[in-house]
């Protein structure tokens, strides 16, 4: 069977648009609410990234940090996250889910044990922020055996030689970081420049799906439409924080935001 991630890209292509990927933190602002958010956005998002909150996140800006600390404070554990995925998949079994996190949490759980749980709960892909290539070779192999995509990150600082090596060994989907930034930074590079870098990478192997993430908001998403997929994370986390601060319902607000994002790329 085709991995649902690949199926999602295929579907978006037939609709002549990039895939929309959302990022929310598991357990933000509670286990139930983060599940409700996933359910409510699933009709407009093509792929759901679910953040595994870590308390020393060296690549995350303030918005995702806020969401992560909020979830940890509420007591979220890795096993809860697998339960959220499982419950979501009972609601929408074909919608792909990618877990995104830091390696220490996987390492403590045990690589094999973690992947077994991923498989059983219905996780389709993994992004491990601080496990770059070639350090991730073994882990990526283990993922492949379980038909889980290990998604490689590519950055504006990645050299051409390195890009080629990473992409050559990569699974069907990779992730291009738009600029030098932690998550949630302001887009400090023009969408044109980002797409120029993107196209250079895409050319290496046009068959690989490459999404762009970091700094994408409602304002900028429309200008990046030619990519295979676009990830919005911090803007959603910020919306959850804003909703909580103004005593509004994060579920409906996030759902509205994702719908707007979708409309911008149709």
């Amino acid at each position, binding site marked *: 069977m085709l991995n649902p991630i690949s199926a999602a890209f295929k579907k978006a292509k037939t609709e002549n648009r990039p895939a929309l990927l959302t990022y929310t933190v598991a357990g933000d602002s509670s286990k139930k609410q983060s599940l409700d958010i996933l359910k409510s956005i699933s009709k407009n998002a093509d792929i759901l990234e679910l953040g595994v909150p*870590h*308390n*020393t*996140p*060296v*690549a*995350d*800006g303030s918005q995702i*940090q806020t969401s992560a*600390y909020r979830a*940890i404070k509420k007591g979220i*554990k*890795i096993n809860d996250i697998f339960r959220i995925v499982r419950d979501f998949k009972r609601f929408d079994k074909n919608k792909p889910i990618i877990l995104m996190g*830091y*390696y*220490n*949490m*996987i*390492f*403590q*759980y045990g690589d094999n044990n973690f992947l077994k749980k991923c498989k059983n709960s219905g996780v389709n892909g993994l992004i491990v*922020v*601080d*496990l*770059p*290539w*070639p*350090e991730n070779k073994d882990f990526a192999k283990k993922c492949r055996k379980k038909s889980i995509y290990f998604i490689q*990150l*590519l*950055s*504006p*600082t*990645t*050299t051409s030689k*390195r890009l080629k090596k990473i992409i050559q060994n990569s699974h069907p989907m990779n992730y291009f*970081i738009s600029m*030098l*930034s*932690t998550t949630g*930074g302001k887009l400090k590079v023009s969408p044109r420049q980002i797409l120029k870098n993107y196209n250079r990478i895409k050319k290496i192997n046009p068959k690989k799906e490459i999404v762009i993430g970091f700094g994408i908001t409602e304002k900028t998403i429309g200008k990046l439409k030619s990519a295979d997929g676009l990830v919005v994370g911090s803007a959603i986390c910020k919306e959850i924080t804003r909703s909580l601060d103004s005593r509004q319902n994060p579920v409906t607000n996030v759902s509205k935001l994702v719908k707007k994002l979708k409309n911008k790329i149709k």
Partner: protein
Amino acid sequence: MKLIKGIPVIDQGNQLGFWGGKFGGNFVPETLKKPIEDLEILFNKLKKDKKFITERDRYFENWVGAPTRFIKLENLTNYIGGAQIWSKVVSDANGGAHKIYNATVHCLLAKRSGKKIICGDTGAGYAGKMLSMAAKKFGLKCKIFMGAKDIARQQPNVKAMKKNGAEVIPVYSGSQTLVDAVSECMRFWVANCDTTAMCVGSTVGPAVFVRICGWSTSQISRELKVQLIEEFGSIPKKLKLYNCVGGGSSSFGFWNEFMDYDKKQVEFIGVEAGGPAKSKKHAAPLTYGSKIGILHGAAQYVNQNSDGQIEETESISAGLDYPGISPLHCFLKDTKRARYTAASDEEALSAFKLVTKFEDLRPSLEPSHAFFVALKEAKKLSKDTVVVVNSCGDAYKDRGILEQRLGKKYVKSN
């Protein structure tokens, strides 16, 4: 796992930067791979470059002030009545602590790489203060990340950084201490690595930072070796080197030149921060058997829960208040070359009282931890044993805490 003789420990990591196959490495976001590789290439080249070594040594001599004193603590020796007690007074170094060596080398590297800005983390404020001094000397702009709790408790060093023109950026996340400062500094580097060099304030972080720092602080043991031979004619038959361990930069530097001696002749004792006597929190991952985990880009023994969340620490000394520990020390522990133990807040304070009562020496709270263990053990040791404690920082920065915990009479005006 084995320590190899004849090869510097900083160069004993494998291709991927792991010591003993499992400590260290480069668990970093993709964006940092290239700047880290560039720094590795530069450092590997320069550390073999005679001109660069000469330049470094010139700054160490004329600006840092090498060598720092090696003195016998006669009164303490008499009072304790066991081993001879000596101190390497590293706090003589410009700025008042060992952090100057790493800061100087990082600024020299930054200059060579053409970077105009340097960022760094700090806990006790010494790493930040020294980086601000070196940045000023070498004409670099300087940004220091420091936990809000540490800013409050280490004011003298904060003032010094600002006076040197550095921007001090308070970090409010997590426990608002060193661990959070290092994270925030790494985030800043991720976003600015095209224009900015990063200095990690101890032998922690991605492998190259561990190596640069260890290479820099090794100046301490190079000096000590010469001083020991001058004093005793040769390296003493029973030598014990006591050092506090936070990230592990001063201890590693204090031991490095003696690595190949049999540990029966030259023993290394690392003293971690045990925290308040009544608290469960500590900053002593080696002493209390923490599990291996990943923190700030490196695999190491680190305080964490079963899910892999890093745990908060507690110590009276901001410089030791860190949940992890250098991969170099994990390696020295598992190869049994060094022995590690901990002293509590109260024990460190008691040692500070004792040292200042008998000697004209004012170790900061960090080395006071080492003094506690050294004095306790010296009592039971023979008179021909030479105990040396690295007094790697001066107590001036701790005046607020000392006044609060011990009273005004323990605080000096400078």
